[in-house]
C-alpha cells in the first residue's frame, strides 16, 4: 500500500516538471515581454523597466525558470501587482474563515455531494426502466439541459429565485461559519441544476454498460432479484468509472464554480481568479495555475488510493 503511494508520488515528479514548464513557457515566453504585459497598456518605459528588474525578467531565461521553480518549492509567490498583497496569503487566507480555498470548498463540496446523490439515483432508476418512455424523456430533458450555457442558469437563477421570489440572498458574503450558508444556498442549488444533465447521462451510460456484462447474467442465474443485482453487483463495479469522473470534476471543487463565485460575490478561489483576470494580475494567475494544479494532483493521488479500495485488481501493483 505505502509502496504504491510512494510510487504514485514519484510518478508525479515528471508531471510536475511538465506543468511548471508549460506554465513558464506560456507566461514568460509565449506572451511576448512579460514586463510590458504586467505594467499594463499605458505604462511608461521606466515603469516597465522597474517591473522587469523587480520580477527578474532581465535575467537569462533559464535563471527565470529556476526562480519560478524555487517559488513553487518554497511556496513564496511574490506579491500581486494590483493589491501588492503576498500571493500565498491571497490564496490561503489569513484565517480559516477568510481562506478562499475553504470558502470555495464550502460552496462546492456540499453541492458536489448532492449532485452525486441525485444524479446516481436518477441514473439507477433509468437503468431499471431502460427503453421506457420515462427513460427516453429524461434523456431528452438532460440533452436539453446541456444545451443552455451555464451562464444562463446563473443569470436566470439569480434573477428569478433571488430577485423575483426573494427566497434567497442574491449576493454578498458573511465569512462566519454559521452565517455563510445563507449566501451559499442559492449558488448551491444552481450548481446542482447545472450539473444534472451531463452527470445523469454519464452515469446512465456506465450502468448500462455494466448491466450487459456476463456477471450480471450469473447473478440472475443464482436467483438474485433486480435490486440486489443493481445495488450490490452493478453499483460496486460501476464505482470504478464513477471515481474516474469524480477525479475529472475535482478541479471544480478546488477552483470553486468560477462563474458562480464571480456572480454571487463569494470570495473563493474562483472569485480570486476572476478578480485577477480583470486586473490582468499576471503573477497571481500564474501562481494559481501552478498551485491549483498541485492541489489537483494531490486529489488524484487520493483517488488512486481509492481505486485500490474499490478495484481488487489494483491492490498489489
Amino acid at each position: 500500500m505505502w509502496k504504491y503511494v510512494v510510487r504514485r508520488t514519484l510518478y508525479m515528479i515528471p508531471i510536475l516538471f511538465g506543468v511548471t514548464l508549460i506554465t513558464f513557457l506560456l507566461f514568460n515566453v509565449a506572451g511576448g515581454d512579460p514586463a510590458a504585459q504586467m505594467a499594463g497598456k499605458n505604462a511608461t518605459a521606466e515603469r516597465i523597466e522597474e517591473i522587469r528588474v523587480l520580477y527578474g525578467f532581465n535575467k537569462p531565461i533559464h535563471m527565470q525558470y529556476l526562480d519560478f521553480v524555487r517559488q513553487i518549492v518554497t511556496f513564496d509567490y511574490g506579491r500581486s501587482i494590483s493589491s501588492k498583497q503576498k500571493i500565498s496569503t491571497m490564496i490561503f487566507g489569513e484565517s480559516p474563515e477568510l481562506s478562499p480555498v475553504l470558502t470555495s470548498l464550502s460552496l462546492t463540496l456540499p453541492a458536489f455531494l448532492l449532485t452525486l446523490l441525485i444524479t446516481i439515483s436518477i441514473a439507477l432508476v433509468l437503468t431499471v426502466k431502460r427503453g421506457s418512455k420515462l427513460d427516453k424523456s429524461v434523456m431528452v430533458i438532460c440533452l436539453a439541459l446541456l444545451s443552455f450555457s451555464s451562464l444562463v442558469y446563473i443569470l436566470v437563477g439569480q434573477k428569478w429565485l433571488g430577485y423575483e421570489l426573494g427566497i434567497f440572498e442574491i449576493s454578498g458574503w458573511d465569512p462566519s461559519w454559521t452565517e455563510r450558508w445563507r449566501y451559499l444556498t442559492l449558488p448551491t442549488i444552481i450548481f446542482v441544476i447545472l450539473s444534472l444533465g451531463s452527470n445523469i447521462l454519464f452515469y446512465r451510460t456506465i450502468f448500462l454498460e455494466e448491466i450487459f456484462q456476463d456477471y450480471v447474467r450469473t447473478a440472475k442465474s443464482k436467483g438474485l432479484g433486480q435490486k440486489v443485482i443493481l445495488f450490490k453487483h452493478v453499483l460496486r463495479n460501476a464505482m470504478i468509472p464513477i471515481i474516474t469522473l469524480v477525479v475529472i470534476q475535482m478541479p471544480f471543487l478546488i477552483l470553486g464554480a468560477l462563474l458562480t463565485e464571480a456572480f454571487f460575490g463569494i470570495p473563493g478561489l474562483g472569485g480570486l481568479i476572476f478578480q485577477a483576470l480583470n486586473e490582468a494580475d499576471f503573477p497571481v494567475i500564474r501562481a494559481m495555475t501552478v498551485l491549483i494544479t498541485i492541489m489537483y494532483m494531490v486529489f488524484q493521488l487520493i483517488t488512486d488510493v481509492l481505486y485500490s479500495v474499490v478495484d481488487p485488481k489494483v491492490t498489489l501493483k
Partner: protein
Amino acid sequence: MSETLVQIKNLSVDFSTDNGTVNAVKGISFDIPKGKTVGLVGESGSGKSVTSLSVMKLIPNPPGKISSGEIIFEGKNLVAASEAQMRKIRGKKISMIFQEPMTSLNPVFTVGDQIAETLMLHEGLSKDDALDKAIDLMDQVGIPDPKTRYKAYPHEMSGGQRQRVMIAMAIACSPDLLIADEPTTALDVTIQKQILELLADLQKKYGMSILFITHDLGVIADIADSVVVMYRGDIVEQNTTEAIFTNPQHPYTKGLLACRPRLDKNPERLPTVSDFMTPDGKEKHNPDADKLVEKAFRPITDDQEVLLEVKNLKMHFPLQKGFFGGVKSWVKAVDDVSIKVRKGRTLGLVGESGCGKTTLGRSVLRLIEPTSGNVIYKDQDITELSKSEMREMRKKMQIIFQDPYASLNPRMSVGAAIMEPMVIHNIGASKEERLELAGDLIEKCGLPREVLNRYPHEFSGGQRQRICIARALAVKPEFIICDESVSALDVSVQAQILNLLLDLQEEFQLTYIFISHDLAVVKYIADELVVMNKGKVVEMADCVSIYKNPKEDYTRKLLDAIPKGIPKTLASTL
C-alpha cells in the same frame, strides 16, 4: 427409462433485429431425465445456447422472446412462471455455468462471497455459516487450500479454478438440474478433462441432471447419456449417445461425426457436412465419403531438404520494470527452441495456451523481434536482414491467423485486400492484371470471383478464412505459418479449410508450420510434430510415432486428455 425432470415442448424463441424477426429456436421438444446427462450439440447459430438460456428464462428481453411452447418442470410450466417464481427456482433447483468463467464471475467480490451469496439467498444461512459451507464446496470441487483461497478475487485464479468456483456456486443448493453452457470451450484440453471428470463425480454424488451444451462431439461422447443435435434452430436428431455415434440417422449428424479429425483414423481427405447433405437439409448420397482412404504415411528422413531452421531462438518479455526502466524479471515465452522444417512438408506445433507456440511463430517471421537466436531460411539468416531486405523476404513467407474476423481490415474490400501485397511487391503490371490474378486466387480458395467487390463483414468465418488464405498466396510464398487457423471455426467448416490447405500445399509445393492446441487437427495435417510447454520443446518426432508411443510424460498427459469421441458405454467394450 428413468423419470423425466424437465420436459421441453414445442419451444420457439424469436429475436427481433434490425432486419426483422429471427426465429432462433423453431418449436423444439426434448426431455431431460432425472439424474442423467443430456448433451445438446450444434454449431454456432444452431440455437443451442438460446435453448439453454430459455430453460432459466434468461433470454435478454428485448430483443429475445419465448414466442411459444412449454417448459415443464415439477409439473409447472416455466414459460408462464412469474419473475418472482423463477427467482426461487434459479440457483436453487436449476443452476447454470457458462463458457467464460472470467467474465461470468463478478470481478470485485471474493469468490467465497459469491458462493456464499447463493446459500444466503436460498438456504437462509447466516453469512458465517454460508462462508463455511462455501469453503466446504470449494473443497468438493477440488480447489486446493480453500480455507485461504475463499478470500481470493476471480482475477487471482486460473481459468480452470474459476470454472470450479462457478461449479461450486451452481451446486451450492444441490440443484435438480445443472445447465452447462460450453463450460470447457475456453479451457485447455487437460483442464477440460479435469472439469468433465469433476462434473461426472458431482452428478453421481448429488444425483442431479445435467444439460450439457457444446459444439464438440468428442466431449459429448465422454459425458452424455443422450444427445440432442441442433441445426439452424431445429432438432435434427435425438437419441442415446451410443446410437448417435454408432448409427446416426440424419445426414447432418453423419456429416458432423465424419468431418471431425480423429486420433484413431487418418483419412486422405476429411469428409465435410456438404458431402452428406444438400444446403436445404436433404440427404445426399456421396460414395466418396464412405471410402475413407487412410492417408499414406510419408516418413521424414534426414536427407530431405531443410527449408527453414530455427536455432536456439529465445523470446523474452519484460515482466516487471524497475523504477528507472531496468527490467527486474522476464517471461521466457520462447526459451531456447531449435526446430527444422522440411521443404514441402508440414510441421505441427502443439501445446496448451501460454506455451509459447504463437510467439514462436511470430518471431520466426520477425513480426516480433526475437531476443536472440537465428532463423535460417535457405542458408540465409533472416534475423540479420535489414528492414528493406526483410520486406523483400516477406514475399516468401506468409502467415494465416486464428481469428478470421480480426484478420481482415473491415474497411477494405476483399479485392483490395488480396491485391495489396501485389502492389507492395510489384506483382502484376497493371490494376487489371492484378484483378485477374486476385480472381484466380479467390477461385482457387473456393469462392467466386464476384466476391472481390464485397467487404469482409458480408462473409462467414470460413469464407473469411478463405479470403485470408488467398491474400497470403498473393505473393506466391513458399512457406506459410498457420497460426491456429482453424480453431475459431465450426467443425464442419474446419474440415473444408483443412482440405483446402492440403490441396494448396500439393499444388504450390508449400511448406507449412501448423500451430494448434488441437492435437487431432495437427495429427491430420502434419507430418512432423513438436510439442511445446512453458516455452520449451518437450518432444519432437514424426506424427505417427508420437501418437503411438509418446516418450515424454507431458505429451502423454496431453494425448490422454483429448476426448476420445467414443461413448462411455462403448469405450468399455473396446
